[in-house]
């Protein structure tokens, strides 16, 4: 029998072991992949390796949340909030910055965003106070807190289509009742350009639930 994993690990110098341990903390990276990445760093030119280190440092030091919409940005307010050509009367509410990026990459939406930084998750003890809901409502109640001082006309709820996302959308819709804004939500169900027979069961169930009247 060869040496066990414990014996093999001790073979690395302490600094290399530290790098492997740091890589292994990344999502989806196991011990083996972490070792591969560490050896890649060891073998690479000093400039390349330090470039990686500096990029990580810059991200942590310079990237923060936009004070208006909570999007990730290295300037405050973010480029979207600062862009006067966007429709500042419409706010699309999403859970995470990565949702904003996905929507933004379509190039189809010209309004502003608000990132909640999560969703209502009672099983984790996450309630409205843990999200950026107060900041969102402030943008609606006080146009001065929305870019350009523009009053919000429409709120588009773009939460994930599952029970927690729907619960969060319901909570926001109730908060918006009695405020003079139109509330819409992103359509859901079958992906366009797809074929019914290839859709998974969850998508089909959602599409059946959300069926619409044809006039």
């Amino acid at each position, binding site marked *: 029998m060869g040496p066990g994993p414990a014996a093999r690990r001790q073979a690395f110098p302490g600094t290399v072991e530290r790098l492997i341990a740091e890589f292994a903390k990344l*999502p*989806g990276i196991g011990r083996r992949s972490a070792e591969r990445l560490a050896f890649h760093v060891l073998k690479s030119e000093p400039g390349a390796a330090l470039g990686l280190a500096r990029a990580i440092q810059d991200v942590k030091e310079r990237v923060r949340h936009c004070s208006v919409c909570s999007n990730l940005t290295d300037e405050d307010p973010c480029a979207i909030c600062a862009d006067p050509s966007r429709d500042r009367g419409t706010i699309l509410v999403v859970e995470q910055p990565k949702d904003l990026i996905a929507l933004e990459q379509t190039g189809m939406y010209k309004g502003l965003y608000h990132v909640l930084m999560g969703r209502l998750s*009672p*099983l*984790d*003890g996450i*309630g409205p106070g843990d999200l950026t809901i107060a900041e969102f409502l402030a943008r609606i109640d006080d146009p001065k807190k929305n870019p350009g001082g523009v009053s919000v006309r429409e709120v588009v709820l773009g939460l994930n289509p*599952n*029970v*927690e996302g*729907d*619960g969060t*959308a*319901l*909570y926001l819709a*109730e908060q918006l009742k009695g405020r003079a804004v139109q509330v819409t939500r992103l359509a859901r169900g079958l992906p366009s350009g797809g074929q019914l027979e*290839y859709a*998974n*069961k*969850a*998508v089909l*169930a*959602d599409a059946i*639930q959300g069926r619409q009247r044809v006039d």
Partner: protein
Amino acid sequence: MPSTRDQALCIRHWDWSETSQTVSLFTRDHGVIRGIAKGAKRDKAPFSGGIELLTRGEVVAILKPSSDLATITAWDLQETFPGLTRSLEAFHSAMYIADVARHSLHDRDPHPALFDALLTALRHLSSAELPPRKVVLRFLWATLNECGWRPELQRDVLSGAPLPNSGELAFAPSLGGFTSMPDAADSPPGPRWRVRGQTLALLRTLDHPADNADPASIERAGKLLNAYLTTVLGRELPAAAPLFGKL
């Protein structure tokens, strides 16, 4: 290792990576199973598109005795409860009863009657057939009964005498029941919660629930059973706060 097939309700899930999930499934015949569903969110995988919280499906899993974590190999979605997000009270009630089930049961300890009670409760909440508070109260009662924590409703836990049906009483969580003499000098230590006689009367109907209880009594009884369950479990359930407030 043979695989196991069972009816299940998803009572907790964590995204483990872009495509994989870890889940707690309350199965009918195998109790709560915690497991990993690798690749569950890939389109072609046999997981109906992913295991979603508060849905019912047929699960196929490999339960290794040597590991707490099962390997989930398939999930066939059978039922969703879209009405749970028609009202915030239904939403929070559904989350709460899932939390109650998860924290009250040990892994792989079968409780088919409680599985049926949870399924019925979710259907009632989704269809808005019963007020959410009533659904929650019934499920709490089913849980306390199934787990062997049913409070004593007939006799005074201090004196052993039959309990009156009205008047002021106290609930002694450490003794698991009611007393009409909370200040007795030689009684065992522990908190005593003041309770109305109507609350006891309502709890006595829960084995054969009638539909004539007033909402205020239902709310008080639910609060009492939640507080009692908190004492039994030794912890507050995260999902209790939106329904009952902080204890």
